[in-house]
């Protein structure tokens, strides 16, 4: 699954640690999602979409 997390975070000038605090996850979790090493669970994906005020399919896509 692809995601735009890194781009969206950069647009807001947030560090991985700042984003992790906002999402209530570890910095390592943010890093793993950004680098494509971990697909978030559905609840976390919704939390991410809500934080960026975007539809979930704008943040995540299943296209290669």
């Amino acid at each position, binding site marked *: 699954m692809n995601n735009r997390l890194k781009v969206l975070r950069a647009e807001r000038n947030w560090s991985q640690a700042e984003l992790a605090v906002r999402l209530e996850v570890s910095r*390592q*979790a943010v890093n*793993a999602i950004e680098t*494509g*090493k*971990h*697909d978030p669970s559905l*609840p976390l994906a919704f939390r991410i979409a809500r934080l960026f005020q975007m539809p979930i399919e704008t943040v995540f896509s299943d296209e290669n």
Partner: protein
Amino acid sequence: MAAWIRKTLYSPVAFDALFALGGTLAFAGMVLDMRHAYPAIESATQPLAKGGSLIAVLLAATLLAVASTRFDQKMADDFLFHTLTKSAFVAMFIVLFTAVGWHILLEQKFGMFSSNVAIAILAAAWAVSWFYTRVRGTLA
């Protein structure tokens, strides 16, 4: 309190330290215990009572494991819990393959290993698969 536990105890870095220590001890214990002969098991005088007791212990352990895993899932974030569970799953197969591999290839030469070594293999396997999953990710 829950937030403190989540942030300090349930962080990937804390588990890195835990598995580094546990894995090192397991590898050391495995090598040090190799002198011991495989312990012979006495035949049970009351096999039904022994079997029933074992099932009772297993069921009690199941309840404890389910409760503690539920707590882990509540406290750990998505990535940490997924890493823990995937590495545990991989570790289970490492133990199985190690036991079979040893039995086929090396048992005749070196003999069987003790039940203590079997536990050390499980701990070492979980540590190895934890670090593999941490480096390669939960999708690898």
